């Protein structure tokens, strides 16, 4: 008898990694690699290939939800700062995440830039860096500049890892991460085309686990999940198809995603968008692999409120996402206190209004625990649409 794994059991594996703030898979990796070094990176995008090629374990630190008590971090940050900056800091201050050798912040917002300084002041044994991704994405000099900046970060990595990284090692890492992105894009394709086969929560957990474990193992995990989905026997339900927008940095609590998916199919979203920021494979045979990574970041990539790129007007990108996902409506969310997310909400709402696409505007916080109000709003929204489309 062939024993087929269920999607549920694989998702539970992912959940166990995602919901444990001590990053158990990273600890196991460290047990296996006694000299191993760990590089954490903040939202949204980091070229993890650079760390991987140096033999480091890249971890995506995307804050933490309700189970993490903020005890120490609050004393170091102003009151009006989003929750992800607090929980990321708390993870380290509390000793929950005591395995980082290096931490990289992209300059996505001023909270992130300040956070780098707070980390650098408080944890002298962690090499805290800002990797200055270019804000002038349209400049002809952006690719050469970013190539130089990636090289600078690579030099820091080499120092921390006490190694020299060869182009061959970089190419091998690019290949591994290309495969990872393809697998995640495949999860998203299934969710988009047949959302009854893979729910938003499942896709989310399977995707987010990438940032919490060695990528080789994550590829394996997703391959198993994709195989299991093929054996899934589920029927489409009469649900509104929505796109969720606003999960590019701070993540909504899992229970919030569950509340939405009770009433709607979330056919596309931007949760953990950095893990699938590059939309195409990075060429493995490029003469300069670092330049290839820089080029991909700027020219073949997704969009988010923290990147201004005149070639990717954000409202148009959102409308395109809605079209391509065959969605009927959008949930325009933003994390509480998130300046870029909140500002983008207005532009998105206006564009959706003009395009005649129904949308629900909401705010969330990773530490929220009660969702009754949101459940009511989402249900009312979904019902009004079902009625309208009936």
């Amino acid at each position, binding site marked *: 008898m062939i024993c087929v794994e269920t999607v549920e059991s694989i998702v539970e594996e992912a959940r166990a990694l995602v919901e444990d703030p001590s990053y158990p898979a990273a600890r196991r990796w460290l047990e296996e690699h006694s000299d191993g070094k760990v590089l954490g990176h903040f939202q949204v995008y980091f070229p993890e290939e650079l760390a991987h090629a140096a033999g480091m374990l890249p971890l995506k630190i995307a804050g933490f939800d309700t189970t993490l008590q903020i005890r120490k971090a609050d004393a*170091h940050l102003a009151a*009006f700062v989003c929750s992800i900056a607090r929980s990321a800091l708390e993870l380290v201050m509390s000793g929950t995440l005591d395995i980082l050798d290096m931490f990289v912040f992209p300059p996505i917002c001023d909270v992130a830039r300040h956070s780098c300084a707070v980390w650098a002041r408080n944890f002298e044994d962690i090499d805290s860096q800002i990797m200055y991704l270019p804000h002038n994405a349209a400049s002809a000099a952006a690719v050469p500049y970013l190539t130089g900046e990636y090289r600078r970060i690579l030099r820091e990595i080499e120092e921390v890892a006490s190694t020299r990284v060869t182009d061959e090692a970089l190419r091998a890492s690019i290949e591994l991460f290309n495969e990872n992105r393809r697998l995640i894009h495949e999860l998203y394709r299934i969710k988009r085309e047949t959302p009854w086969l893979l729910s938003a929560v499942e896709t989310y957990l399977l995707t987010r686990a990438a940032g919490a474990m060695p990528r080789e193992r994550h590829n394996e995990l997703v391959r198993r999940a994709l195989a299991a989905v093929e054996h899934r026997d589920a029927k489409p339900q009469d649900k509104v198809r929505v796109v969720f927008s606003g999960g590019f940095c701070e993540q909504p609590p899992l229970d919030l995603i569950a509340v939405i998916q009770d009433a709607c199919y979330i056919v596309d979203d931007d949760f953990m968008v950095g893990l699938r920021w590059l939309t195409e494979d990075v060429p493995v045979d490029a003469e300069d692999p670092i330049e290839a990574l820089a080029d991909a970041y700027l020219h073949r990539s997704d969009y988010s409120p923290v990147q201004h790129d005149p070639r990717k007007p954000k409202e148009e990108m959102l409308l395109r996402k809605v079209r391509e996902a065959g969605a009927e409506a959008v949930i325009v969310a933003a994390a509480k206190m998130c300046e870029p997310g909140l500002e983008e909400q207005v532009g998105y709402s206006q564009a959706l209004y003009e395009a005649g696409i129904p949308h629900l505007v909401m705010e969330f916080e990773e530490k929220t625990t009660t969702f009754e109000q949101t459940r009511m709003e989402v249900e009312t929204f979904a019902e009004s649409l079902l009625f309208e489309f009936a």
Partner: protein
Amino acid sequence: MTTPTKHERRIVIRPPLPLAGTTRDENRKLIREWWDELNAAGEEGRPVANVFVMGSMAEILRTFDMPIAFPEMTSLQTAVRGRSLEYITTAEDAGYSPDICGYVKADIGVHLQGGDHPMGHLPEPSLVVATNLCNTYIKWAEIWERMYSCPVFVFDIPGWRGSGFETKRGSGTFRDDVRYVEAQVRELIALTEEVTGKRFDIDRFRENLASVNELSRLFREVLELNQHRPAPFNALTEGINLMGIVNAYRGSPKGTRFLEIAKAEFTERAERGVGAVPDERFRLLLVGTACYSNFRDFAGLFEDWQGVFPHSDYMSFAGGALDRGVHYDLDRPIESMAEQMVLTTQEAMGGMFWGQDWLTEVVREWSIDGIVFHGVKSCRTVSTGLPDEREWLLRRRDIPGLFIQSDLVDPRLWSAAQLKNRIDAFFESLESRRAAGARR
């Protein structure tokens, strides 16, 4: 000592000073002229650029005779005139969150009300230059982009990079940063040519650069005057006037002339021993910004204790890094602009995120008794890490600091009693420190 109140403040009779009021009068005149130019450009349909104080690129734009609007300044003016809340609520009614920068909302409120501002009429921008020095600048620029379909140029100056980073001429990173910035200088020139229909005149550009060199030299001299005891001007209150003019007139001889007037007046005060705050007792350093919607009250909370602010980090970052010493090489104007932009903004912005060393130096040079860290809800750019910085400076350098919070322009976040309690307690602790020091 019991806490003095405003009502108990002594009436101080100062000796008549021949130059008294000259800075204020020139400031008023220049701000009026600046507004008149914006109004006229709007009426005549001439192109106007919207820019920001940190990295305004006035050196380039002024070459094309483009009137320059500084929305941070015009938002501040709505607050000082007690009108910010009506604009903020207009923006909130249009969907902008209570939790975003109040400067953005005050400005958007003005635009949503057809450009009517308490001081004139804000014209539509024909070009927006937003640096990355505050990330909200970029989001703000995108709002105008949607409103007016105007071109937005995000001028990116890579900044402080984290642990162990130093801006070093000759390093690979410095060269990469300068190359990127220089390319953008050229791209911005090309775009401005397109928007204005004028050719770039490198000699005009050189003149502007020369003028900024002069402005920077004078600005540093004026700041240094405040190393005198008593401090001849208050960086909190009079500083705001200086900042307005050095931004609005950066690259213009009117800006340098203004600083000469200010320097003369403050020198006269210093020579006569006349302080900005009568009977100066405490010298403070402001980190963050003031609260402009309750500006007089905010200043009063410190003046009541005869506390003066000889310096603030605001005078550094909001002055487009003039305090760091801008030295453009006029023989290589474009290359030199790129180099100086990288050098000075990395220092000034680094000072905002990684400010402990610069603050320690200011404490020493300007004889500061304590630092006031004022976090404002509007501005994560200045406020996010202030509690950490305060704690670090106290623990590692024994520099006392007070952390308080309100807002820049939103009077709903002003809590007078709470602030007064905290500020009074801080002054009392400074007094005890002083007494303990005297006993040792």
